[in-house]
């Protein structure tokens, strides 16, 4: 499954939770290493998803309770925090990822993490600029 991998090589695909090895006729997966940095990346990614969901909930709340002309500051804080968490997670993974040999590339999920960070940030900034209409 190349799509959810963070690094890919000819036989080993690694994602955030499992390292999988395709050998003749089989798919052997083991839980990703117990090192501290991969657990920190897992935590940061989960937290960013949680904060994005919370910002959506608060946006809906504020949509109905804000005065006319008010700005969505509370929502913006959560969205910007989510983007910061994604950025930290992607940076930690880039720096600490050990497989820098020839033939090992970053997978789609890793690229998606880096794309998500500026999109999240832009969304948070738009919440700051946005004003509630009647």
């Amino acid at each position, binding site marked *: 499954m190349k799509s959810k991998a963070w690094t890919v090589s000819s036989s080993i695909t690694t994602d955030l939770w499992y390292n999988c090895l395709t050998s003749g006729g089989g798919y052997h997966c083991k839980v990703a290493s117990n090192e501290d940095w991969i*657990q920190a990346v897992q935590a940061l990614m989960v937290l960013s998803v949680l904060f994005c969901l919370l910002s959506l909930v608060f946006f809906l709340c504020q949509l109905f309770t804000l005065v006319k002309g008010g700005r969505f500051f509370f929502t913006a804080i959560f969205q910007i925090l989510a983007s910061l968490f994604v950025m930290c997670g992607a940076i930690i993974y880039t720096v600490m990822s050990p497989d820098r040999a020839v033939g090992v590339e970053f997978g789609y999920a890793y690229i998606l993490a880096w794309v998500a960070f500026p999109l999240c940030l832009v969304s948070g900034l738009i919440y700051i600029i946005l004003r509630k209409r009647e």
Partner: protein
Amino acid sequence: MLTILALASIVLLGIVPQQSEAIVIYTGWERHALVGSDIRLSCSFFSWRWTSEDVTFSWSYRPDGARDSISIFHYTGGAPYVDNKGPFRDRLEFVGNPARRDGSILLKNLDYGDNGTFTCDAKNPPDIVGRASSVRLLVFEKVPIQAGVITGAIIGAVLGLLVLIVVIYYLMRFLVARRVFNLSVSKHGRKGKGKEGSQQRQASPLDVGSLTTTQRQQLTATAHKHRTTQVIDGHLTPPPP
């Protein structure tokens, strides 16, 4: 009508037991242990039949990298037989309870050479068709941090911090609102004439003991500034008329 019902039930009863006569064996997936410690490897099974008296448990061990496995424990005929020649002689003990379908063994004084795969096979006659289950043993000098502990700790800490910030924010807002309310009550009381004003002011003395020291100082400072209250015996009371 009744014959059809009887025939149907016989046919159904004939089909179902074929499938339910498999025995399912449960062991752990992977066990971590420190050098020199003891570890209990648990093995239990599920069977559609009652536990018979001829139930058997047998454990076998395959070292890491080897291709053959050797038998290290066997329980049959109501008696356990432990390894007395192989790598686990004098280190193996049976701690299970076959009547409760528990066939666990205790390995004592582990060493690096005990890394490997332990397979438990249980048979409950006439329920004998089943697949043995394996547990991997990993012996460490220092047990590594389990997967997910740090993840959970970071998530819990950030969410806890968030809840704390929200609680503190609402608490400060509540306290400031209460102080503003008390001061505005006393201000309105001074504008009113004579007895009604002083009665309003004496309505409720604010108990200073429940506030922290900084809040107390702020409160007394503003109280002195407005000259509407005095501190007597630790209570903020309106000045006597």
